[in-house]
Protein backbone atom coordinates (compact mmCIF):
# COMPACT_ATOMS: atom_id res chain seq x y z
CA UNK A 1 0.00 0.00 0.00
CA UNK A 2 2.77 2.40 0.99
CA UNK A 3 4.69 1.62 -2.17
CA UNK A 4 1.69 2.45 -4.35
CA UNK A 5 1.33 5.95 -2.91
CA UNK A 6 5.02 6.46 -3.54
CA UNK A 7 4.65 5.54 -7.20
CA UNK A 8 1.66 7.76 -7.74
CA UNK A 9 3.29 10.86 -6.21
CA UNK A 10 6.63 10.66 -7.97
CA UNK A 11 5.48 11.66 -11.49
CA UNK A 12 3.83 14.75 -10.06
CA UNK A 13 7.07 15.78 -8.37
CA UNK A 14 8.74 15.65 -11.79
CA UNK A 15 5.89 17.63 -13.29
CA UNK A 16 5.60 20.12 -10.44
CA UNK A 17 7.77 23.00 -11.75
CA UNK A 18 6.21 22.80 -15.20
CA UNK A 19 2.68 22.52 -13.84
CA UNK A 20 3.07 25.51 -11.53
CA UNK A 21 4.39 27.78 -14.29
CA UNK A 22 1.88 26.56 -16.86
CA UNK A 23 -1.00 27.03 -14.43
CA UNK A 24 0.06 30.47 -13.22
CA UNK A 25 1.38 31.97 -16.46
CA UNK A 26 -0.37 30.08 -19.27
CA UNK A 27 -3.69 28.71 -18.06
CA UNK A 28 -4.85 31.08 -15.32
CA UNK A 29 -4.20 34.26 -17.38
CA UNK A 30 -6.75 33.08 -19.97
CA UNK A 31 -9.46 32.81 -17.34
CA UNK A 32 -8.28 36.04 -15.79
CA UNK A 33 -8.36 38.06 -19.01
CA UNK A 34 -11.89 36.78 -19.64
CA UNK A 35 -12.90 37.93 -16.16
CA UNK A 36 -11.21 41.34 -16.39
CA UNK A 37 -12.95 41.90 -19.73
CA UNK A 38 -16.29 41.92 -17.90
CA UNK A 39 -15.29 44.77 -15.56
CA UNK A 40 -14.52 48.41 -15.76
CA UNK A 41 -10.95 47.88 -14.60
CA UNK A 42 -8.59 50.77 -13.97
CA UNK A 43 -5.22 51.32 -12.38
CA UNK A 44 -6.54 50.44 -8.92
CA UNK A 45 -8.21 47.19 -10.04
CA UNK A 46 -11.85 46.28 -10.60
CA UNK A 47 -14.15 49.26 -10.35
CA UNK A 48 -17.49 47.97 -11.48
CA UNK A 49 -19.00 44.90 -13.15
CA UNK A 50 -20.20 45.82 -16.62
CA UNK A 51 -21.06 42.47 -18.19
CA UNK A 52 -20.46 42.74 -21.89
CA UNK A 53 -20.08 46.51 -21.63
CA UNK A 54 -16.48 46.50 -22.82
CA UNK A 55 -17.41 44.42 -25.86
CA UNK A 56 -20.24 46.80 -26.72
CA UNK A 57 -17.82 49.67 -26.24
CA UNK A 58 -15.50 48.06 -28.78
CA UNK A 59 -18.32 47.71 -31.29
CA UNK A 60 -19.10 51.42 -31.03
CA UNK A 61 -15.47 52.58 -30.91
CA UNK A 62 -14.36 53.87 -34.33
CA UNK A 63 -10.71 53.25 -33.39
CA UNK A 64 -11.49 49.62 -32.72
CA UNK A 65 -13.04 49.27 -36.17
CA UNK A 66 -10.12 51.10 -37.67
CA UNK A 67 -7.67 48.77 -35.95
CA UNK A 68 -9.67 45.72 -37.06
CA UNK A 69 -9.82 46.96 -40.66
CA UNK A 70 -6.10 47.71 -40.67
CA UNK A 71 -5.36 44.27 -39.22
CA UNK A 72 -7.48 42.64 -41.91
CA UNK A 73 -5.71 44.63 -44.64
CA UNK A 74 -2.41 43.57 -43.13
CA UNK A 75 -3.43 39.89 -43.16
CA UNK A 76 -4.93 40.08 -46.66
CA UNK A 77 -1.69 41.52 -48.06
CA UNK A 78 1.00 39.77 -46.03
CA UNK A 79 -0.31 36.21 -46.31
CA UNK A 80 -0.69 35.84 -50.11
CA UNK A 81 2.44 37.88 -50.87
CA UNK A 82 4.49 35.86 -48.46
CA UNK A 83 3.16 32.55 -49.75
CA UNK A 84 3.74 33.53 -53.38
CA UNK A 85 7.34 34.63 -52.93
CA UNK A 86 8.36 31.92 -50.51
CA UNK A 87 6.88 29.18 -52.71
CA UNK A 88 8.54 30.68 -55.78
CA UNK A 89 11.95 30.76 -54.09
CA UNK A 90 11.45 27.26 -52.65
CA UNK A 91 10.66 25.93 -56.15
CA UNK A 92 13.79 27.51 -57.55
CA UNK A 93 15.91 26.15 -54.70
CA UNK A 94 14.42 22.69 -55.19
CA UNK A 95 15.56 22.39 -58.81
CA UNK A 96 18.82 20.57 -58.07
CA UNK A 97 21.06 23.60 -58.07
CA UNK A 98 24.36 24.11 -56.29
CA UNK A 99 24.89 26.58 -53.43
CA UNK A 100 21.41 25.86 -52.07
CA UNK A 101 22.83 26.23 -48.55
CA UNK A 102 24.13 29.71 -49.26
CA UNK A 103 20.80 30.96 -50.60
CA UNK A 104 18.85 29.37 -47.78
CA UNK A 105 21.07 31.13 -45.25
CA UNK A 106 20.61 34.50 -46.92
CA UNK A 107 16.84 34.19 -47.18
CA UNK A 108 16.52 32.97 -43.61
CA UNK A 109 18.68 35.68 -42.06
CA UNK A 110 15.85 38.23 -41.52
CA UNK A 111 13.83 35.58 -39.64
CA UNK A 112 16.38 35.35 -36.83
CA UNK A 113 17.24 39.05 -36.77
CA UNK A 114 15.58 41.19 -34.12
CA UNK A 115 12.53 43.16 -35.23
CA UNK A 116 13.90 46.22 -33.44
CA UNK A 117 17.06 46.44 -35.56
CA UNK A 118 15.18 45.54 -38.74
CA UNK A 119 12.58 48.23 -38.14
CA UNK A 120 15.33 50.78 -37.62
CA UNK A 121 17.01 49.93 -40.93
CA UNK A 122 13.74 49.96 -42.88
CA UNK A 123 12.67 53.22 -41.31
CA UNK A 124 15.96 54.60 -42.56
CA UNK A 125 15.35 53.06 -46.00
CA UNK A 126 11.86 54.60 -46.04
CA UNK A 127 13.16 58.04 -45.06
CA UNK A 128 11.03 60.49 -47.11
CA UNK A 129 13.94 62.74 -48.09
CA UNK A 130 17.13 60.73 -48.22
CA UNK A 131 16.00 57.11 -47.97
CA UNK A 132 17.06 54.33 -50.31
CA UNK A 133 13.48 53.63 -51.40
CA UNK A 134 12.88 57.14 -52.70
CA UNK A 135 16.33 57.13 -54.24
CA UNK A 136 15.32 53.99 -56.15
CA UNK A 137 11.95 55.50 -57.16
CA UNK A 138 13.49 58.70 -58.52
CA UNK A 139 16.17 56.64 -60.24
CA UNK A 140 13.36 54.78 -62.06
CA UNK A 141 11.56 58.10 -62.76
CA UNK A 142 8.70 57.53 -60.34
CA UNK A 143 7.52 60.26 -57.96
CA UNK A 144 9.01 59.98 -54.44
CA UNK A 145 6.65 58.90 -51.64
CA UNK A 146 6.20 59.77 -47.97
CA UNK A 147 6.10 56.08 -46.99
CA UNK A 148 5.66 55.71 -43.23
CA UNK A 149 4.07 59.14 -42.81
CA UNK A 150 1.58 58.72 -45.68
CA UNK A 151 -1.97 58.10 -44.48
CA UNK A 152 -3.62 58.07 -47.91
CA UNK A 153 -4.78 54.67 -49.12
CA UNK A 154 -2.65 52.98 -51.73
CA UNK A 155 -5.54 52.71 -54.21
CA UNK A 156 -6.05 56.46 -53.85
CA UNK A 157 -2.40 57.07 -54.60
CA UNK A 158 -2.50 54.78 -57.62
CA UNK A 159 -5.56 56.33 -59.29
CA UNK A 160 -4.75 59.81 -58.00
CA UNK A 161 -8.02 60.87 -56.34
CA UNK A 162 -9.91 60.38 -53.09
CA UNK A 163 -11.90 57.23 -52.44
CA UNK A 164 -14.39 56.49 -49.68
CA UNK A 165 -13.36 54.38 -46.66
CA UNK A 166 -12.58 50.77 -47.46
CA UNK A 167 -12.08 51.36 -51.19
CA UNK A 168 -9.03 53.50 -50.41
CA UNK A 169 -7.18 50.39 -49.27
CA UNK A 170 -4.47 50.25 -46.59
CA UNK A 171 -2.46 53.43 -46.13
CA UNK A 172 0.96 53.59 -47.73
CA UNK A 173 2.32 53.69 -44.17
CA UNK A 174 0.72 50.32 -43.48
CA UNK A 175 1.87 48.97 -46.83
CA UNK A 176 5.44 49.98 -45.95
CA UNK A 177 5.19 47.82 -42.83
CA UNK A 178 3.60 45.04 -44.87
CA UNK A 179 6.48 45.02 -47.36
CA UNK A 180 9.03 44.83 -44.55
CA UNK A 181 7.19 42.03 -42.78
CA UNK A 182 6.83 39.99 -45.98
CA UNK A 183 10.58 40.39 -46.43
CA UNK A 184 11.19 39.29 -42.84
CA UNK A 185 8.94 36.22 -43.02
CA UNK A 186 9.75 34.78 -46.45
CA UNK A 187 12.65 32.67 -45.22
CA UNK A 188 10.48 30.95 -42.64
CA UNK A 189 7.75 29.93 -45.08
CA UNK A 190 10.38 29.02 -47.65
CA UNK A 191 12.01 26.33 -45.50
CA UNK A 192 8.59 24.81 -44.78
CA UNK A 193 7.81 24.72 -48.50
CA UNK A 194 11.25 23.23 -49.19
CA UNK A 195 10.58 20.45 -46.72
CA UNK A 196 7.18 19.86 -48.34
CA UNK A 197 8.68 19.77 -51.82
CA UNK A 198 11.31 17.28 -50.78
CA UNK A 199 8.58 14.96 -49.53
CA UNK A 200 7.02 14.63 -52.97
CA UNK A 201 8.15 11.27 -54.37
CA UNK A 202 10.63 11.55 -57.25
CA UNK A 203 8.84 8.97 -59.41
CA UNK A 204 5.93 11.34 -60.13
CA UNK A 205 8.33 13.73 -61.78
CA UNK A 206 10.08 10.92 -63.64
CA UNK A 207 6.75 9.75 -65.01
CA UNK A 208 5.87 13.30 -66.07
CA UNK A 209 9.23 13.62 -67.81
CA UNK A 210 8.63 10.40 -69.73
CA UNK A 211 5.24 11.76 -70.82
CA UNK A 212 6.95 15.00 -71.92
CA UNK A 213 4.94 17.29 -69.63
CA UNK A 214 5.92 20.96 -69.64
CA UNK A 215 7.34 22.76 -66.62
CA UNK A 216 4.13 24.58 -65.76
CA UNK A 217 1.83 21.60 -66.18
CA UNK A 218 4.14 19.57 -63.92
CA UNK A 219 3.67 22.28 -61.31
CA UNK A 220 -0.07 22.52 -61.95
CA UNK A 221 -0.82 18.78 -61.88
CA UNK A 222 1.85 17.30 -59.62
CA UNK A 223 3.59 19.81 -57.35
CA UNK A 224 0.62 22.01 -56.42
CA UNK A 225 -1.85 19.23 -55.48
CA UNK A 226 0.77 17.20 -53.65
CA UNK A 227 1.95 20.29 -51.81
CA UNK A 228 -1.55 21.35 -50.76
CA UNK A 229 -1.24 20.22 -47.13
CA UNK A 230 1.98 22.22 -46.76
CA UNK A 231 0.42 25.24 -48.43
CA UNK A 232 -2.56 25.03 -46.16
CA UNK A 233 -0.33 24.80 -43.09
CA UNK A 234 1.64 27.86 -44.19
CA UNK A 235 -1.58 29.70 -44.95
CA UNK A 236 -3.01 29.13 -41.48
CA UNK A 237 0.22 29.75 -39.57
CA UNK A 238 0.84 32.98 -41.51
CA UNK A 239 -2.69 34.18 -40.94
CA UNK A 240 -2.50 33.46 -37.21
CA UNK A 241 0.86 35.22 -36.87
CA UNK A 242 -0.30 38.16 -38.96
CA UNK A 243 -3.29 38.83 -36.73
CA UNK A 244 -0.83 39.33 -33.86
CA UNK A 245 1.30 42.04 -35.51
CA UNK A 246 2.41 44.70 -33.05
CA UNK A 247 6.15 45.34 -32.73
CA UNK A 248 6.78 46.88 -36.17
CA UNK A 249 3.80 49.23 -35.70
CA UNK A 250 5.13 50.40 -32.34
CA UNK A 251 8.67 50.70 -33.64
CA UNK A 252 8.07 52.34 -37.01
CA UNK A 253 4.94 54.48 -36.69
CA UNK A 254 4.39 54.94 -33.02
CA UNK A 255 4.13 55.78 -30.25
CA UNK A 256 1.92 57.68 -29.63
CA UNK A 257 -0.51 57.52 -32.49
CA UNK A 258 -0.39 54.16 -34.28
CA UNK A 259 0.75 55.83 -37.43
CA UNK A 260 -0.36 58.85 -39.38
CA UNK A 261 -4.08 59.41 -38.52
CA UNK A 262 -4.15 56.00 -36.89
CA UNK A 263 -3.70 54.41 -40.30
CA UNK A 264 -1.34 51.73 -38.97
CA UNK A 265 -3.31 51.14 -35.80
CA UNK A 266 -3.76 47.35 -35.49
CA UNK A 267 -5.64 45.22 -32.95
CA UNK A 268 -2.72 44.50 -30.65
CA UNK A 269 -1.53 48.09 -30.82
CA UNK A 270 -5.02 49.24 -29.93
CA UNK A 271 -5.19 46.99 -26.87
CA UNK A 272 -1.68 48.02 -25.81
CA UNK A 273 -2.69 51.65 -26.15
CA UNK A 274 -5.92 51.15 -24.18
CA UNK A 275 -4.10 49.43 -21.33
CA UNK A 276 -0.85 51.34 -20.99
CA UNK A 277 -1.77 54.81 -22.19
CA UNK A 278 -5.37 54.99 -20.95
CA UNK A 279 -5.28 52.43 -18.09
CA UNK A 280 -8.48 50.81 -19.41
CA UNK A 281 -7.49 47.25 -18.57
CA UNK A 282 -11.06 45.98 -18.84
CA UNK A 283 -11.47 47.34 -22.34
CA UNK A 284 -8.01 46.09 -23.35
CA UNK A 285 -8.95 42.64 -22.04
CA UNK A 286 -12.11 42.62 -24.15
CA UNK A 287 -10.01 43.31 -27.26
CA UNK A 288 -7.59 40.57 -26.18
CA UNK A 289 -10.52 38.16 -25.97
CA UNK A 290 -11.71 39.16 -29.45
CA UNK A 291 -8.22 38.51 -30.82
CA UNK A 292 -8.11 35.20 -28.99
CA UNK A 293 -11.45 34.11 -30.46
CA UNK A 294 -10.32 35.00 -33.99
CA UNK A 295 -7.12 33.00 -33.63
CA UNK A 296 -8.91 30.11 -31.91
CA UNK A 297 -11.42 29.90 -34.76
CA UNK A 298 -8.61 29.75 -37.29
CA UNK A 299 -6.86 27.02 -35.30
CA UNK A 300 -10.04 24.96 -35.09
CA UNK A 301 -10.67 25.36 -38.81
CA UNK A 302 -7.15 24.10 -39.41
CA UNK A 303 -7.67 21.06 -37.20
CA UNK A 304 -10.96 20.20 -38.91
CA UNK A 305 -9.51 20.49 -42.39
CA UNK A 306 -6.38 18.53 -41.53
CA UNK A 307 -8.58 15.76 -40.16
CA UNK A 308 -10.35 15.62 -43.51
CA UNK A 309 -6.98 15.83 -45.25
CA UNK A 310 -6.44 18.24 -48.06
CA UNK A 311 -3.80 16.21 -49.83
CA UNK A 312 -4.21 13.34 -52.22
CA UNK A 313 -2.61 10.01 -51.55
Amino acid at each position, binding site marked *: MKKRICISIKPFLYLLPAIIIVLV*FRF*FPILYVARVSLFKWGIGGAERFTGFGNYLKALSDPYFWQSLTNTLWYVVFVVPLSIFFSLFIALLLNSKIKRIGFFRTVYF*LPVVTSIVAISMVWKWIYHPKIGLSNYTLTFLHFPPQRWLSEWRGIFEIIIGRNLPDVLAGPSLALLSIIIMMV*WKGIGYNMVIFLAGLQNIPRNYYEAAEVDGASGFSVFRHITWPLLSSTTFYVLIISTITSFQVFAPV*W*LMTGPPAGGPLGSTNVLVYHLYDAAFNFSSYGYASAISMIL*FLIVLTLTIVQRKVVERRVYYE
Partner: protein
Amino acid sequence: MKKFLIYIFLSVGALLFIVPFYWMVVTSLKPAVEAVKFPPTWIPMAPRPENYIDALKAAPFGRYFLNTLFIAIITTLGVIITSSLAAYAFARMQFKGRDVIFLLFLAMMMVPMPVYIIPGYLILASFGWIDTFYALIVPWIVNVFAIFLLRQHFRTIPKALYDAATIDGCSELGFLWRIAVPLSKPAVVTIAIFSLLASWNSFVWPLVMTNREEIRPVQVGLAYFIQEQSTNYTLLSAASTLVVLPVIILFFFFQRQIIESHMKSGMKE
Protein backbone atom coordinates in the same frame (compact mmCIF):
# COMPACT_ATOMS: atom_id res chain seq x y z
CA MET B 1 20.06 27.95 -69.89
CA LYS B 2 17.24 27.17 -67.50
CA LYS B 3 19.74 26.73 -64.65
CA PHE B 4 21.28 30.06 -65.55
CA LEU B 5 17.90 31.82 -65.29
CA ILE B 6 17.29 30.23 -61.91
CA TYR B 7 20.62 31.53 -60.65
CA ILE B 8 19.79 35.01 -61.92
CA PHE B 9 16.45 35.02 -60.10
CA LEU B 10 17.93 33.64 -56.89
CA SER B 11 20.82 36.11 -56.93
CA VAL B 12 18.60 39.12 -57.49
CA GLY B 13 16.41 37.89 -54.64
CA ALA B 14 19.43 37.32 -52.41
CA LEU B 15 20.60 40.85 -53.17
CA LEU B 16 17.26 42.25 -51.98
CA PHE B 17 17.71 40.28 -48.76
CA ILE B 18 21.25 41.42 -48.17
CA VAL B 19 20.87 45.13 -49.04
CA PRO B 20 19.16 46.19 -45.77
CA PHE B 21 21.89 44.45 -43.73
CA TYR B 22 24.58 45.94 -45.93
CA TRP B 23 22.94 49.35 -45.61
CA MET B 24 22.93 49.09 -41.82
CA VAL B 25 26.64 48.24 -41.66
CA VAL B 26 27.61 50.86 -44.25
CA THR B 27 25.62 53.57 -42.49
CA SER B 28 27.22 52.61 -39.19
CA LEU B 29 30.63 53.38 -40.71
CA LYS B 30 29.80 56.74 -42.29
CA PRO B 31 30.47 60.17 -40.84
CA ALA B 32 27.18 61.88 -39.99
CA VAL B 33 27.50 64.29 -42.92
CA GLU B 34 28.00 61.53 -45.45
CA ALA B 35 25.08 59.49 -44.13
CA VAL B 36 22.56 62.16 -45.09
CA LYS B 37 24.00 62.78 -48.53
CA PHE B 38 21.64 62.40 -51.46
CA PRO B 39 22.20 60.50 -53.71
CA PRO B 40 23.62 58.09 -51.15
CA THR B 41 27.09 56.58 -51.30
CA TRP B 42 27.41 52.79 -51.34
CA ILE B 43 30.89 52.65 -49.86
CA PRO B 44 31.85 55.07 -47.07
CA MET B 45 34.33 57.58 -48.43
CA ALA B 46 35.94 58.18 -45.05
CA PRO B 47 35.02 55.23 -42.77
CA ARG B 48 34.38 56.29 -39.20
CA PRO B 49 34.48 53.29 -36.82
CA GLU B 50 34.32 55.74 -33.91
CA ASN B 51 30.52 55.64 -34.40
CA TYR B 52 30.56 52.39 -32.45
CA ILE B 53 32.35 53.97 -29.52
CA ASP B 54 29.98 56.96 -29.62
CA ALA B 55 26.95 54.66 -29.66
CA LEU B 56 28.26 52.67 -26.68
CA LYS B 57 28.83 55.92 -24.83
CA ALA B 58 25.44 57.42 -25.70
CA ALA B 59 23.48 54.72 -23.85
CA PRO B 60 24.45 52.05 -21.28
CA PHE B 61 24.59 49.25 -23.85
CA GLY B 62 27.09 47.31 -21.75
CA ARG B 63 24.49 47.13 -19.01
CA TYR B 64 21.78 46.08 -21.49
CA PHE B 65 23.98 43.31 -22.90
CA LEU B 66 24.76 41.96 -19.43
CA ASN B 67 21.07 42.07 -18.47
CA THR B 68 20.05 40.13 -21.55
CA LEU B 69 22.88 37.65 -21.12
CA PHE B 70 21.79 37.03 -17.55
CA ILE B 71 18.13 36.63 -18.51
CA ALA B 72 18.98 34.38 -21.48
CA ILE B 73 21.25 32.04 -19.51
CA ILE B 74 18.94 31.63 -16.52
CA THR B 75 15.89 31.17 -18.74
CA THR B 76 17.63 28.59 -20.90
CA LEU B 77 18.91 26.59 -17.92
CA GLY B 78 15.42 26.76 -16.41
CA VAL B 79 13.80 25.55 -19.61
CA ILE B 80 16.19 22.61 -19.90
CA ILE B 81 15.68 21.53 -16.29
CA THR B 82 11.89 21.89 -16.12
CA SER B 83 11.36 20.37 -19.58
CA SER B 84 13.60 17.38 -18.91
CA LEU B 85 11.74 16.59 -15.71
CA ALA B 86 8.29 17.04 -17.22
CA ALA B 87 9.15 15.29 -20.47
CA TYR B 88 10.55 12.35 -18.51
CA ALA B 89 7.34 12.02 -16.53
CA PHE B 90 5.23 12.19 -19.68
CA ALA B 91 7.42 9.77 -21.61
CA ARG B 92 8.31 7.06 -19.11
CA MET B 93 5.96 7.13 -16.14
CA GLN B 94 2.50 5.69 -15.77
CA PHE B 95 0.03 7.77 -13.81
CA LYS B 96 -3.57 8.81 -13.82
CA GLY B 97 -4.40 11.82 -15.98
CA ARG B 98 -1.07 11.76 -17.80
CA ASP B 99 -2.49 12.14 -21.29
CA VAL B 100 -5.04 14.74 -20.22
CA ILE B 101 -2.36 16.90 -18.60
CA PHE B 102 -0.13 16.52 -21.64
CA LEU B 103 -2.95 17.56 -23.98
CA LEU B 104 -3.71 20.57 -21.77
CA PHE B 105 -0.05 21.57 -21.98
CA LEU B 106 -0.14 21.28 -25.76
CA ALA B 107 -3.37 23.29 -25.92
CA MET B 108 -1.53 26.19 -24.28
CA MET B 109 0.60 26.47 -27.41
CA MET B 110 -2.47 27.61 -29.34
CA VAL B 111 -2.93 30.77 -27.28
CA PRO B 112 -1.45 33.76 -29.11
CA MET B 113 1.21 35.63 -27.13
CA PRO B 114 -0.45 39.10 -27.26
CA VAL B 115 -3.41 37.71 -25.32
CA TYR B 116 -1.03 37.29 -22.35
CA ILE B 117 0.07 40.93 -22.28
CA ILE B 118 -2.77 42.33 -20.14
CA PRO B 119 -3.38 39.44 -17.72
CA GLY B 120 0.38 38.83 -17.50
CA TYR B 121 0.92 42.44 -16.54
CA LEU B 122 -1.87 42.42 -13.95
CA ILE B 123 -0.70 39.12 -12.41
CA LEU B 124 2.94 40.20 -12.25
CA ALA B 125 1.83 43.53 -10.76
CA SER B 126 -0.08 41.72 -8.01
CA PHE B 127 3.12 39.77 -7.21
CA GLY B 128 5.01 43.08 -7.10
CA TRP B 129 7.22 41.74 -9.89
CA ILE B 130 6.85 44.55 -12.43
CA ASP B 131 10.25 46.08 -13.11
CA THR B 132 12.14 43.09 -11.72
CA PHE B 133 14.08 40.29 -13.37
CA TYR B 134 11.44 37.84 -12.10
CA ALA B 135 8.94 39.27 -14.58
CA LEU B 136 11.33 38.60 -17.45
CA ILE B 137 12.49 35.14 -16.38
CA VAL B 138 9.96 33.19 -14.33
CA PRO B 139 7.06 33.08 -16.85
CA TRP B 140 9.43 31.77 -19.52
CA ILE B 141 11.35 29.04 -17.67
CA VAL B 142 8.82 26.52 -18.94
CA ASN B 143 8.42 25.89 -22.64
CA VAL B 144 5.74 23.49 -23.80
CA PHE B 145 7.39 23.00 -27.16
CA ALA B 146 10.61 21.94 -25.40
CA ILE B 147 8.67 19.43 -23.28
CA PHE B 148 7.06 18.04 -26.40
CA LEU B 149 10.38 17.70 -28.23
CA LEU B 150 12.17 16.03 -25.31
CA ARG B 151 9.28 13.67 -24.70
CA GLN B 152 9.59 12.40 -28.28
CA HIS B 153 13.30 11.74 -27.69
CA PHE B 154 12.87 10.09 -24.30
CA ARG B 155 10.33 7.68 -25.72
CA THR B 156 12.93 6.26 -28.11
CA ILE B 157 15.29 5.23 -25.28
CA PRO B 158 15.01 1.45 -24.85
CA LYS B 159 13.61 0.11 -21.59
CA ALA B 160 16.57 -2.30 -21.36
CA LEU B 161 18.89 0.61 -20.81
CA TYR B 162 16.82 1.76 -17.87
CA ASP B 163 16.77 -1.74 -16.37
CA ALA B 164 20.53 -2.07 -16.76
CA ALA B 165 21.13 1.32 -15.14
CA THR B 166 18.85 0.64 -12.17
CA ILE B 167 20.40 -2.77 -11.59
CA ASP B 168 23.76 -1.00 -11.40
CA GLY B 169 22.26 1.16 -8.65
CA CYS B 170 21.35 4.22 -10.67
CA SER B 171 18.41 6.19 -9.31
CA GLU B 172 15.60 7.45 -11.52
CA LEU B 173 16.90 11.03 -11.41
CA GLY B 174 20.41 9.77 -12.04
CA PHE B 175 19.16 7.90 -15.09
CA LEU B 176 17.47 11.04 -16.35
CA TRP B 177 20.52 13.32 -15.99
CA ARG B 178 23.31 10.88 -16.75
CA ILE B 179 21.72 8.81 -19.49
CA ALA B 180 18.43 10.11 -20.91
CA VAL B 181 19.44 13.78 -21.28
CA PRO B 182 22.91 13.09 -22.79
CA LEU B 183 21.31 10.60 -25.18
CA SER B 184 18.92 13.34 -26.32
CA LYS B 185 21.72 15.82 -26.91
CA PRO B 186 20.47 16.94 -30.35
CA ALA B 187 17.10 17.91 -28.87
CA VAL B 188 18.70 19.60 -25.86
CA VAL B 189 21.01 21.62 -28.11
CA THR B 190 18.08 22.64 -30.30
CA ILE B 191 16.10 23.74 -27.26
CA ALA B 192 19.04 25.64 -25.77
CA ILE B 193 19.73 27.55 -28.98
CA PHE B 194 16.08 28.27 -29.54
CA SER B 195 15.70 29.57 -26.00
CA LEU B 196 18.86 31.72 -26.16
CA LEU B 197 17.71 33.21 -29.44
CA ALA B 198 14.20 33.89 -28.17
CA SER B 199 15.57 35.56 -25.01
CA TRP B 200 17.99 37.66 -27.01
CA ASN B 201 15.32 38.87 -29.43
CA SER B 202 12.52 39.20 -26.88
CA PHE B 203 11.00 42.65 -27.15
CA VAL B 204 7.27 43.04 -26.49
CA TRP B 205 7.19 41.31 -23.09
CA PRO B 206 10.08 43.28 -21.52
CA LEU B 207 8.77 46.47 -23.14
CA VAL B 208 5.54 46.08 -21.19
CA MET B 209 6.91 44.59 -17.96
CA THR B 210 9.91 46.86 -17.29
CA ASN B 211 10.71 50.52 -17.05
CA ARG B 212 13.94 50.82 -15.09
CA GLU B 213 17.11 51.21 -17.09
CA GLU B 214 19.09 48.96 -14.70
CA ILE B 215 17.24 45.82 -15.72
CA ARG B 216 16.40 46.81 -19.31
CA PRO B 217 17.27 44.08 -21.82
CA VAL B 218 19.07 44.86 -25.03
CA GLN B 219 16.13 45.02 -27.49
CA VAL B 220 14.15 47.43 -25.33
CA GLY B 221 17.30 49.46 -24.73
CA LEU B 222 17.86 49.66 -28.47
CA ALA B 223 14.22 50.60 -29.11
CA TYR B 224 14.36 53.52 -26.67
CA PHE B 225 17.75 54.55 -28.03
CA ILE B 226 16.19 54.65 -31.50
CA GLN B 227 13.39 56.88 -30.23
CA GLU B 228 15.73 59.28 -28.45
CA GLN B 229 18.25 59.60 -31.26
CA SER B 230 15.58 59.46 -33.94
CA THR B 231 17.57 61.09 -36.75
CA ASN B 232 21.09 60.11 -35.80
CA TYR B 233 21.21 57.19 -38.23
CA THR B 234 24.95 56.56 -37.99
CA LEU B 235 24.75 55.90 -34.25
CA LEU B 236 21.49 53.96 -34.57
CA SER B 237 23.04 51.74 -37.23
CA ALA B 238 26.13 51.14 -35.14
CA ALA B 239 24.06 50.18 -32.10
CA SER B 240 21.76 47.93 -34.17
CA THR B 241 24.72 46.19 -35.77
CA LEU B 242 26.12 45.41 -32.33
CA VAL B 243 22.77 44.03 -31.17
CA VAL B 244 22.31 41.89 -34.28
CA LEU B 245 25.87 40.57 -34.53
CA PRO B 246 25.74 37.87 -31.79
CA VAL B 247 22.61 36.35 -33.35
CA ILE B 248 24.11 36.28 -36.82
CA ILE B 249 27.25 34.60 -35.49
CA LEU B 250 25.14 32.05 -33.63
CA PHE B 251 23.08 31.51 -36.78
CA PHE B 252 26.14 30.72 -38.91
CA PHE B 253 27.33 28.11 -36.42
CA PHE B 254 24.00 26.45 -35.64
CA GLN B 255 22.05 27.06 -38.81
CA ARG B 256 20.59 23.59 -39.08
CA GLN B 257 19.30 23.49 -35.48
CA ILE B 258 17.92 27.03 -35.67
CA ILE B 259 15.98 26.43 -38.88
CA GLU B 260 14.74 23.09 -37.57
CA SER B 261 13.55 24.49 -34.26
CA HIS B 262 11.70 27.32 -36.00
CA MET B 263 9.95 24.85 -38.27
CA LYS B 264 8.96 22.45 -35.52
CA SER B 265 7.72 25.04 -33.08
CA GLY B 266 5.63 26.86 -35.66
CA MET B 267 7.07 30.09 -34.33
CA LYS B 268 8.25 32.93 -36.47
CA GLU B 269 10.07 35.10 -34.03
